[in-house]
């Protein structure tokens, strides 16, 4: 979203509704909601210019808790409805809230097309690797072998990685964060809000009822330094508590490798993050855990024309060339004849 408008100073409270939040106690969704409500005043969009559109699932209850315009739609279709909103009024600040099932299973098609068209919307995908609202079936991001109510002998599916999917769809902004890492998540949301075009944030979100501890190995504070890498544009790809490890390319196989930064020559070998490099973004998004850390941050970000702006351009071009259409002229165009 690029058209930041100044608004009277609002607080987090102005973005809360009078509705009881009905997520399970301890759900990661609370933290994401609190972050979004806190950031909204900082972004400076008037509440009435902001629309939250969601599909179906636990995460999709989100709009009911935001004191903006909100549309809780049907399973998987939020991106298509959000694009319709933008087509009718490109000035609006439109957010799509979805989950791994909503956005990548039933709604995978719409998400793909929303991203590749570069509609000026912000997608936040809550990835808990489980179907929560239907009480615990495996999702398209669940690991192979996952034992759930619908897969008692283990899921036979290979999972899809949301950030990889988004990069593959040519999204112009792809980031990844963690529900309980408030400062990082806030930063990602702010960056995505400022991006003109389709932005996609994958948030690892813990479902403490049906898939508790799914991300403990890198989500827990104690593990984060060693198990994650925070990527920042132009900076070396370092991780570890003392930044003692880094990422580099093995030139003969074009594969990533973990460097011991104490080793000779490591400082020259370590990669610098380049947000505009889709190949690097793809490699970072797909690093196998735990051999590699989980990449967090803005993996990919480029400028390209937005769908909404191009629609307007075409309309303006048509009006410039043909003038504003006159119905009478249209009805009387071509072959006509008069009966007296």
């Amino acid at each position, binding site marked *: 979203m690029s058209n930041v408008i100044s608004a009277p100073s609002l607080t987090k409270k102005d973005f809360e509704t009078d509705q009881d939040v009905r997520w399970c106690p301890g759900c990661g969704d609370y933290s994401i909601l609190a972050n979004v409500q806190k950031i909204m005043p900082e972004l400076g969009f008037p509440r*009435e210019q902001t629309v939250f559109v969601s599909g179906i699932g636990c995460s999709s209850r989100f709009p009911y808790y935001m004191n903006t315009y909100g*549309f809780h739609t049907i399973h998987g279709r939020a991106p298509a409805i959000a694009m319709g909103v933008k087509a009718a009024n490109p000035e609006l600040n439109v957010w799509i809230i979805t989950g791994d099932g909503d956005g990548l299973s039933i709604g995978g098609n719409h998400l793909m097309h929303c991203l590749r068209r570069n509609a000026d919307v912000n997608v936040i995908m809550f990835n808990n690797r489980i179907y929560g609202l239907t009480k615990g079936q495996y999702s398209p991001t669940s690991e192979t072998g996952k034992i759930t109510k619908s897969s008692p002998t283990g899921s036979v599916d290979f999972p899809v990685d949301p950030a990889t999917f988004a990069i593959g769809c040519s999204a112009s902004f792809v980031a990844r964060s963690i529900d309980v890492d408030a400062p990082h998540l806030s930063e990602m949301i702010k960056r995505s809000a400022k991006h003109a075009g389709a932005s996609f944030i994958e948030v690892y979100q813990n479902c403490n009822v049906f898939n508790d501890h799914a991300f403990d190995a890198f989500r827990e504070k104690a593990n984060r330094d060693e198990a994650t890498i925070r990527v920042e544009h132009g900076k070396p790809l370092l991780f570890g508590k003392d930044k003692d490890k880094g990422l580099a390319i093995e030139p003969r196989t074009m594969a990533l490798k973990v460097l011991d930064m104490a080793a000779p020559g490591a400082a020259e070998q370590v990669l610098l993050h380049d947000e505009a490099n889709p190949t690097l973004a793809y490699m970072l998004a797909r690093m196998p855990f735990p051999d590699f850390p989980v990449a967090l941050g803005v993996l990919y970000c480029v400028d390209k024309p937005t769908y909404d702006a191009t629609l307007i351009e075409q309309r303006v071009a048509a*009006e410039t060339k043909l003038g504003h259409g006159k119905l009478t002229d249209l009805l009387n165009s071509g072959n006509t004849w008069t009966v007296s």
Partner: protein
Amino acid sequence: MASADPQAAALDTKAAQILPGAVVRFAGDSGDGMQVTGSQFTVAAALAGNDLATFPDFPAEIRAPAGTLYGVSGFQINFAARDVFTPGDRPDVLVAMNPAALKTNLADLKPRGLLILNTSAFSKANLKKAGYEVNPIEDHSLDGYAVVAIDISKNTIAAVEESGLNKKEAERCKNFWTLGLMFWIYGRKLEPTIKWVEAKFGKRPDVVQANIAALKAGHAYGETAEISHYRYEVPPATVAPGKYRNIGGNVALAWGFVAAAELSERPVVLGAYPITPASDVLHELSRFKHFGVTTIQAEDEIAAVCLAIGASYAGAIGITTSSGPGIALKGEAIGLAIATELPLVVVNVQRGGPSTGLPTKTEQADLFQAMYGRNGEAPLCVLAAASPGDCFHIALEAVRIAVKYMTPVMILTDGYLANGAEPWLIPDVAKLPRIPVHFRTDPEGFHPFLRDEETLSRPWAIPGTPELMHRIGGIEKNYHTGHISYDPANHELMSKTRAGKIAKIADDAPELKIEVGDDSGKLLVLGWGSTYGAIREAVSRCRERGLSVSHAHLRYLNPFPKNLGEVLARFERVLVPEMNLGQLVKIIRAEFLVPAESYPKIQGMPFRIEEIEERIRHTMES
């Protein structure tokens, strides 16, 4: 329609024979340009002042293998010096460009009708493909017709020699040669077609020159002694004064939506996914960006309707166009628009079903889908256009109802209306009623389901409006607050309110009138949609024979016109012809407890007048 065989009677004279009307069918390979030929012949008839109706019949394959029976493409026109309501039952003249076209169309040609054949296409291979063991031109099997067999290909190639086209391209001009000949037979002017050719093929001056040369050569050929017997004149029809144009159903529908944008002063956003036979509405609307029309070719049918719903939510006129299979996919989203009470127009250009069915053929079998094809109690307004030109007015009416009652409106047309065409009295834009749109801006007492007492519609409060921030969604909402509610009594109240709102539209819609015949009598023939012309003509003919029969036609299917029950009660019997296995008839029987009789036809083709006429006679005798 011409009487039995005036064409044959004309054999004995060289002067143009004056006819009350004629039915002509062009048939050939799908690559032979029969649709272009038919369209140009139509324009000429319209410009000569005839009333007319047309219907193309083409295969689903874009380029079916040449010479095959399933690759035959046809175009029929009925033009007359009197009112015309259908493309005609049986042609007086059949132009068959190859044996397959002859084989598939001959049975329809009237006895002693004029048969124009392209002999060069009657090769051994083509005869075999069409299933002829002997060339029918030579075995006297066509003796019951007035056969004019011409080597059209050879004549065409000779005529276009100077254009420099290669032989294959030159031969492709044969449809214009044939058109020229038909223009001579019916005394039509060549100029409008010449202008059309110049505009259409402007980038290829050689093709322009060749097609015009072929057209003129075919016309000149008419002067030869061999064919000069066949020269007819169909005088202009007496029709209401005004300015006319020819219009097809899909174009009329698209123009209706353009008009709705102007009359409501709201932008139109169309979400659509390509599907036969509805794609032309998308094509047509995509030309009108300068009218405030945005078209989005969606990734699928579901996205198409969702785009329209999102656009309506944000204050535009959201429209989606499709055909039966696409409508099936949109069902859940239409339910969302019903639950959230947003304006939405859904067009179903019906085709043969189920599943892929008959994509290029016509049918009316999606009425139940329109009425009931969603989960839950999900009523919406259903309208059906009666003729190609009526599609324009139905589009306007759908938008008016959608924005006034905050509801989805389903428009039913079909392949017959979509591709058929008729002369259309061009409306005076200044006299078209405005479509008032009211956006709520007052925060006082606002909630999203606060209802208008008269219409029961909820306020249209669009994003961007200060102090009206609110949340809507597919979960049931509380009648009094608009918040989520699982309360049992509230659900019943909301369900009844949604149904009551749709029922109220009847107060705001015209009453059902008798199209033809008396207000009461022995038999009412009740139709809906594209069967209008055939029923009207059949009922008129039966009345000329003294039968007590009347015709009424439904354009409003949900809710029905307020007086439908009364109208039904005034007749001893009710007959419902439909291009399905009996859908409207079941609703009529259920709603009004009358023993209405069904006359179903489900062949992918419209009713013939004579079929309905016969059925009426049979019904009244039984």
